[in-house]
């Protein structure tokens, strides 16, 4: 790891001042992706600003029909939260399936979505539920947030403070994990909202994406049978040593069917 100057601000304002106008500075959340990247010298920064001491960025609360999760809330806390289990159990299950228990004690929702790894779990939940990303400057709709491979709409100097999730009528997340890394080879988040059905796919493409054909079919009938004959074109999907684009395309449909089944069962209870 190349060395850097480490900073530990106690407030959001202090953090914002530390990164303002600097392009070689990086925010550190849980560090579960950033520290390995630094170790491999895939990245190099003059300064790291650690958000770990800013208590205002942590915590989970319900505001009417919205669940608000602070950016620095660890996955383990989301997975174990009674508030999340009541509002969006699919999101608690998603958080409980990220990495391993030790990673979940440290990794955060804000760090995960700011990193925008194409195979990370949280982007599927954020896009699938049509969440809103709250930053130090503005609010960004999930549909406008994920732009590509490790690329988001965040501007230099902008800090994610929280994610606001609308509470769905039913939702579920299913992933087929790569057995060694546990990142998703294909992960599908399905949500039945008041305004329609959303289906978000992670692990298969260069970035999390919406499976619009499946959304249209499920809007007519929210049942696994609605996905009969529906396919995802493999053209823009990833091929690597773990799976071909065709395998991923097929896997996405299977995961989507299972997610709809799981969401329907959860709803019936």
């Amino acid at each position, binding site marked *: 790891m190349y*060395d850097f*100057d480490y900073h530990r601000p106690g407030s959001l304002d202090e953090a914002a001042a530390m990164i303002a106008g600097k392009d070689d500075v990086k925010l550190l959340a849980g560090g579960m992706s950033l520290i390995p990247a630094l170790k491999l010298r895939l990245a190099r920064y003059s300064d*790291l600003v650690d958000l770990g001491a800013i208590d205002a960025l942590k915590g989970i609360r319900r505001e009417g029909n919205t669940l608000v999760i602070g950016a620095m809330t660890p996955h383990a806390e989301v997975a174990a939260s009674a508030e999340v289990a009541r509002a969006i159990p699919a999101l608690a299950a998603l958080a409980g399936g990220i990495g391993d228990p030790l990673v979940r004690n440290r990794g955060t929702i804000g760090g995960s979505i700011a990193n925008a790894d194409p195979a990370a779990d949280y982007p599927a939940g954020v896009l699938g539920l049509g969440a809103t990303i709250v930053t130090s400057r503005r609010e960004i709709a999930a549909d406008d947030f994920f732009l590509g491979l490790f690329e988001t709409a965040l501007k230099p100097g902008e800090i994610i403070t929280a994610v606001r999730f609308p509470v769905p009528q039913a939702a579920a997340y299913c992933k087929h994990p790569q057995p060694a890394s546990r990142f998703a080879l294909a992960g599908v988040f399905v949500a039945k909202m008041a305004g329609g059905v959303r289906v978000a796919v992670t692990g298969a493409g260069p970035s999390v994406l919406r499976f619009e054909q499946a959304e249209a079919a499920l809007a007519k009938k929210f049942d696994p049978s609605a996905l009969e004959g529906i396919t995802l074109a493999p053209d823009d999907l990833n091929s690597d040593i773990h799976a071909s684009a065709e395998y991923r395309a097929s896997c996405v449909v299977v995961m989507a069917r299972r997610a709809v089944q799981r969401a329907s069962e959860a709803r019936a209870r």
Partner: protein
Amino acid sequence: MATVSLTVNGQRVSAEVEGRTLLVQLLREHLRLTGTHVGCDTSQCGCCTVHLDGKGVKSCTVLAASCEGATVTTIEGLAPEGKLHPMQEAFREHHALQCGFCTPGMIMSAVDMVRRKGNDLDEHTVREQLEGNLCRCTGYHNIVKAIQAGAAAMKRKA
């Protein structure tokens, strides 16, 4: 270089560290607490597991400077000098190791598992919750038995 101050195994300590110094380097190289092992250095194997403010973390993937004011427990601090923690005793009793390299991390992870999942652990839960710790010798069989027994023994001692 900056000074980081924290509590390790009940003792207040301070050390001069670089920004890039990892918690595991602080523990092993500055404090000479070499019970915490570095296996993979890529946050996969879990040999470096310690408790940071009461929660299990992989100390190869935490910056030492991030631990300012924190409380850290390593395998050396799990039980009073000369005594074994019930989980350590269970690992000994069930011969849950061969080479022993992964054992400190396994035990720290197992104690964290009890915190999260309680004292009555079935085999499936233990195997699932142990996915952040790799052992290349044992096939996990005795480790799983030891964790179940250790978890139960922690309840009796509590």
